Each structure stands twice: as structure tokens, then as C-alpha cells.
């Protein structure tokens, strides 16, 4: 498992670089690139993902109106924001013209709505891929990779990134697979190109991967879950004692109502505090790595 030392995208420079890569990947045009400032002209499909305006698109589609592509103006720090706002204001006519909307600059920082949407769009678009190493004709070792997050949760949670891959030739499992291949020169490929090289089915590979995930989770320290269970048992005992103490001297109807209330509260406590481990699969990929004799297959 990968222990990332520092969370990414916490600096303005990282966010700018991320946006440049994202908009280039989705086919947006960069119209203006100044220090910590960008203007991107975005395709309609990207526009729909980044800006929430379903009624506008319903109107566009119903009326078959041609639409001007949206230009996103993004400032990545305060200095860029004020500098570019001043520039845009200077370009505006002195007297306001009706219908001439003020052009708005979005300040991009971690947690801003637009940046969250950009991340969500990237996450959605980058969920599955098929890539290979080297040109056509080279001998490949096929891998099925899954990336995701293991969440350990009770009242509160902790998450860790995982990347496991299984070799379709021999069902060998490799941990931290993505970290080993992410800087390699990989290019888009057809799935059939990669699967041609495998002896095992995808179903077998996926079952093997799930087993690996279970083994991984089983190998972790359980103390957090044991502590959570102790707290939950204490809370349930307290709840139970409280309601038991109220049950005397009640009519049948009142008792039934109180018992129902207790059960509801017990269920809520269990939902809140039961320790759970969930493997969230976020990405999957078919990866063909060039065969390198004498080394662990392809990695």
C-alpha cells in the first residue's frame, strides 16, 4: 500500500498544473496563459460536467440554438485574481450595456466548487483505461489493475490508497502496481491487443484481486475496531439500562411505544458506530507491459 507523505493539490502551482493537464486532456483550448491565470474554452460535454445548469441545456436542445463555447477564467492566487479583474474591468465599456454580462473570474483553491467539479470530472473520465508499453508487435505481459481506497470507519474514518494488479498469465499479485507504472511511457491500446497475451480470464483475475484485498485488510491492525466495538457496547448498554428503567409502571401501549423508541435508537447507534472496512474500487485498467527477461514480469 502506498503511504503518500503529502496530500496532493495543496499548492496553487499543483492546482494550476493539474488544470492545464485536465483541460488539455478533455480537448479544451487554452486562450490565455498568464502567471497563475488561465482562460480555457471548453467543449460542451465538459461544460455540462463543470457547470450546473441543466435547464439552460434543456432550452438549448429544445430550441436548437447554436451556443457559444464557454470560456472559463481561472485565477490560482489572489494576486492573479485582482490583476486580471482589473484588466477585464478596463476592457469593459465605461457605461454598462444591458445584456452585457460582467465576465467573471473563478478563484481556484482547494475546496472551491469549480475545482471540486474539475476533480470529479477527472475522476469520472479516468476510471477505466487500456494501455500498453512499446509499439505494436512487442511482446506484452497482460495485467488487470484496480486502484481505490480502503476505508476503515466507525464513528470516524481513515482511508488508504491501494493499487493491486494481477497478471493474466500466471495470476501473480503485485501490490502498489500503479506507483510502479505511472511514470512509464504508456499509450492507448485496444483491450483485445492485451488480452491476447493472457492465459487466465478476467473473471479469474478479478476474483484473485478481491482475495488479495481481503487478505490485505485482514493483515491490518484491529485495535481501532476493537476500541470502537467497546465504545459501541458501552453505549448500547447505557441505552438499554435507561429504557429498562423507564418501563415499570407503564401501560402496555406506552411500553410498546417506548420499546419501539429504544429499538430505533439502538439501530441508529449501531449504524453510527459499527466498525466497517470498505474497499472502494475507483479505477480499473488493462495494462500490457513489455516483457523483460529475468525480471519480475513487467514491473
Amino acid at each position: 500500500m502506498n503511504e503518500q507523505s503529502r496530500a496532493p493539490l495543496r499548492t496553487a502551482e499543483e492546482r494550476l498544473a493539474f488544470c492545464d493537464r485536465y483541460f488539455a486532456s478533455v480537448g479544451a483550448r487554452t486562450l490565455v496563459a498568464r502567471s497563475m491565470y488561465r482562460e480555457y474554452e471548453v467543449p460542451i460535454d465538459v461544460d455540462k460536467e463543470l457547470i450546473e445548469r441543466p435547464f439552460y441545456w434543456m432550452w438549448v436542445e429544445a430550441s436548437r440554438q447554436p451556443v457559444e463555447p464557454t470560456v472559463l477564467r481561472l485565477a490560482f492566487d489572489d494576486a492573479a485574481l485582482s490583476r486580471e479583474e482589473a484588466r477585464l474591468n478596463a476592457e469593459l465599456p465605461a457605461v454598462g450595456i444591458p445584456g452585457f454580462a460582467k465576465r467573471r473570474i473563478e478563484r481556484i483553491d482547494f475546496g472551491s466548487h469549480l475545482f471540486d467539479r474539475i476533480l470529479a470530472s477527472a475522476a469520472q473520465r479516468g476510471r477505466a483505461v487500456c494501455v500498453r508499453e512499446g509499439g505494436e508487435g512487442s511482446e506484452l505481459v497482460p495485467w488487470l489493475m484496480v486502484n481505490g481506497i480502503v476505508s476503515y470507519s466507525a464513528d470516524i474514518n481513515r482511508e488508504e490508497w491501494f493499487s493491486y494488479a494481477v497478471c493474466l498469465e500466471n495470476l501473480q499479485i503485485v501490490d502498489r502496481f500503479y506507483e510502479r507504472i505511472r511514470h512509464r511511457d504508456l499509450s492507448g491500446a485496444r483491450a483485445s491487443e492485451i488480452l491476447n497475451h493472457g492465459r487466465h480470464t478476467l473473471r479469474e483475475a478479478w476474483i484473485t484481486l478481491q482475495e488479495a484485498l481481503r487478505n490485505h485488510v485482514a493483515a491490518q491492525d484491529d485495535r481501532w475496531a476493537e476500541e470502537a466495538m467497546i465504545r459501541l457496547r458501552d453505549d448500547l448498554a447505557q441505552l438499554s439500562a435507561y429504557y429498562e428503567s423507564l418501563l415499570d409502571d407503564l401501560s402496555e401501549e406506552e411500553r410498546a411505544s417506548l420499546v419501539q423508541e429504544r429499538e430505533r435508537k439502538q439501530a441508529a447507534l449501531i449504524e453510527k458506530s459499527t466498525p466497517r472496512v470498505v474497499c472502494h474500487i475507483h479505477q480499473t485498467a488493462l495494462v500490457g507491459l513489455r516483457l523483460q527477461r529475468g525480471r519480475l514480469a513487467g514491473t
Partner: protein
Amino acid sequence: MRELADETIRTGERPWSFSVRGLDVESELEALLHMGRESRDADWELFRLAAIAHHAWMSPSFDQLLALEHVQFTPLPHQVETALRVVRDLRGRAILADEVGLGKTIEAGLVLKEYLVRGLVRKALVLVPASLVSQWTKELNQKFRIQAIPQRDEWTWTTDGVIVASIDTAKRPPHADLVRDQWWDMVIVDEAHKLKNPRTKNWQILNQLQHKYMLLLTATPVQNQLKELHTLITLLKPGQLGNPAEFAERFVANPRTPKDPAALRQTISRVMIRNRREDGALELPKRHVRIVPVELTPEERAFYDAVQAFLRSEFERSRMARTSILPLITLQREICSSAYAALLSLEKMLKKTTDPDRARRLQSLIEQGASIPSYAKVESVLKMLDDAPDKIIIFTEYRASQDFLMYTLKRRSISAVPFRGGFRRGKKDWMRELFSKKIRVLVATESGGEGINLQFCHHMINYDLPWNPMRLEQRIGRIHRLGQTEACHIAHLVTKDTIEEHIMEVLQDKVRMFEAVIGRLDDIVSDIRLDLWERRIFEAAMTSRDEREFVNRLKSVQMEDLMLQKGGRHPR
């Protein structure tokens, strides 16, 4: 291939359940196989960007406040610490009882954001007084970047996300059933002192909600009786303080005095966090509180005495007839505020009465009150306005007093706007805006004052005193709060030789009970010497025969409490 996914797998003796969720790997691979084209190079780039995005969103530890990286401001240290304690130690069920103005909203917002960021909350309900729905929604959106929506109709309850709603709407049909039917990952209740009575619909709807986490926000978890604390904590963690009888036996000496304050404090610290200014939670500018004695004019005095005499006889009559004394208490409170306010109640009584003698007496009182040529409190206010050139907020409990003040200020060409609970949200925002930009005086009634922030003003006149010390504290908290940069000057107008004069003592008593359990309040009342206490108790006993509740409260004050000033020092 999918059969294992989404299904909790048996984990034998392990103390957790395990499941695989998220992407449907089978479908994704099928799609790749049948796509009929090769992945583009850009797809690999997007794959790598997606991995970065998931890393960026990850919650790498149990005890780190991730929300801080997602919000658009820097919270104060005590707010961060509180949010962390709620999440880490109190496990998401807590009373946030900071003194007014220390940022309970910020703390609650941080906790909510933390759970949202961690993916532990998807559907949350924020219940607030109707007047604060807009303010909360705006603050959650702007400060915390939480896409909260105000509740608009029955459909809203069933939507995911964060819903801000009025508790009065939530408890009413047809909404109540819908609210009860939902599963709420988190429930936040602002002004939670309104949940102090388990027989109210407010408390009952909260008790019936299905929820994981719950935050109750109130600066005043105890207002009148210790059992209110039990009621509130039982909503969060039933049994934490035992059942009502166990609580009374273990912790209650008398309704307003704890038996073992240290043990009670210790027990409630597991569900409650209270930050106080004096602990260094926040360096706010000083507040200067002074009592301004007001001498009634001869005509007002005659009217006051006549109303007191009427009240005494009416009280006797009510007692014999076993009828409600509530209208009499209201009249008593109104006459403390202004003769003008009392006139309205007298007129209502006149309309209702069928007794000719009583009608004659009421008519006579109304004529006497209406003929008063000048009002001492109003004159005091005008003088104070002359002395202090800045913006001033004047608080009164009564609409009639508010109207009269507005009328008087207008006649003197002093710019003023009213503010009250009955205003619609938009009008409240507009009045506040006018006061901040153009207008010198804001005349607010109690209900209108709840929750509004007026840090740009630092002078306050309490035209009358609420009989609840926490409401007095809430009034002061409108200006003496985060964002205030100037020393605050607060004046309580107290009419000499009236029951109002004794209210300060009652307030002090209640404050002491609150302090014993929860922690000390600020100096919201001036220190009172022992001789004053004795004289006032005597006067109260003489004058309060028609104020049963008032008498009981004074009687329950312990002698040792009277001897002690705040901080445990004996008076000179």
C-alpha cells in the same frame, strides 16, 4: 464477477465487517472490450489525473481535521479545538454551549464539513429559528462551501444534501411525518434551549428523528431548572445522566442547585463543550455594564401603584377562582417595561370582562395611564442618545414599547428602524442593512433579536429587563461577539421602587446556578453587596404576593449564595 462486490463478507471473529464497493469492474472491463476503439493517449493522462484526485480527497487519519483545508476562512483556535473534540472524543454527538459570540455556528459548520469531506454525512438537517434560515444557509454556502438549501416544501425533506429548516415547520403536519421518516446522517439544532421541555413538540420531534450525529447549539443549556440539562442530554445520549429520578437523586439538591457540581460537570463534559471568554477563548473588547436607575414621574408612579393594587386584587380573585394568572404576570411585566405597554393589556382585559365593577376599574386605569404626560424611561433614553453620538441598539420585550420608542425618536428627528421576530427574512436583512449603513438607532424586540449579528454597533440600552438572564446575555451577545473591535457599553434601565429593581437579583441567582454547573458567565450584572440583597429580599417578599413564581425563586436562593460574589469572594 460482481457477486462478491457490494456484499458484506463474513469476517469470522474480526471486529469489523468487510465489503467491496464502488466501480463495477466487470461492466467497465466489458465496456473496454466492446468499445471498438483503442483508448486514447489522453485517457491514460485522465487516468493519472483521476488517481491524483482520489489521493487529494482521501482522509488519511482518524484524528485530523480535514475540513480546514476545504473552508474559505481561518477559524479561531478554540473553534478548531472544539470541532476536533466533537469528532474525535465526543464522537459526533455534542452540545456546543459556548458563550454567546464565540462562534458556535462556526464550530458546528466545521464539524458538518468534516463529516461531509470524510463521506460520513450525505444527508443532514439543520433546524434553526425561522428568522435564521437564510443566515445559516448563506453562511454554510459561503464560509464552508457546503451546498445547503433552505427547506421550501414537502419534497425538500426527501432530497439528499444539507437542508436548513425552521423547527416550527418541521414539527408541524404534514412535514413532521416526512421529517421522521428520513434517515439523517447529521442533525444540528440551533438555539437548542428551546428543547428544554420533553413535553413540547420541539423536543418530541427531535427525539423521534433517526440520526447518526447530532449537535445541539445553545449558550444557555440551563435556564431555569437543572432538569433542563437532563432533558437536553437525553436527546443526545439517553442514559448519560440516568433516568429523571436517578438524575434528581444523584445531582439535584433543589431544582436550581446541583448536589455535586464537580461530578455533574465531569459527567456532562462527555457530551458538552463550553468555551468562555475568560478562559482565553477569545480576546473580545471589554464590556461595560451599568444599571441606570430611573425615577418615575409622579403620574407614572400613581399609575404603577394603581396597577399594582389592581394586580394584587386580581391575583386573589384568580386564586379563589383557580383561573390562570398568566395575563396578570404579563401585565406585571408590561408595567415594568412602560405604562404604554401595560395599556394594551388593560384594554384587552376590558374587552373580555363581563363584570361591571371590574370594567369600571379597568376603564379608570386606562384613562389614568393614557393621561400620563411624560415617560421617565423615554426621557432617559433620549438623554443617553444625546450623550452617546454612536449607533445604539435599544432592546425591549414589548411591541407597544417599541412602537412608542419609534414614535418618540421620529418626533425628535432621530433616525431609527424597528426589528422584530414577525418580519419576513428579507425585511430583517434590509433593516439590518439600513442600520449598518444609514440609521443611528435600531429598536428591537426580544424575538427579533435572536441570532442577529450587529458587531458594527457597540452601544446597547436595555429599555426593560427580561426575566431570564440568558436572554439578557443573548441580547448583549448581538454586539459583544466575534468581529467587535470596540469596547461595548450596555445600560440596563431599571425603574426605582418597582418590581423591576428586584429582577436584577433574580437574574443574579439564576446566573449562579448556571455557573455552578456549566461555568461562569461574564459580568452581566453588577456585583451586589450583602446589605442590598437583604433589603431587596425583604422588599420582594412585601411586593411579590401577586407574583408567585417570582417569590418562589427568591425563596430558593441560599444564604451562602447571597454572601458570595462572583468568583467566591466575600463582599466588603
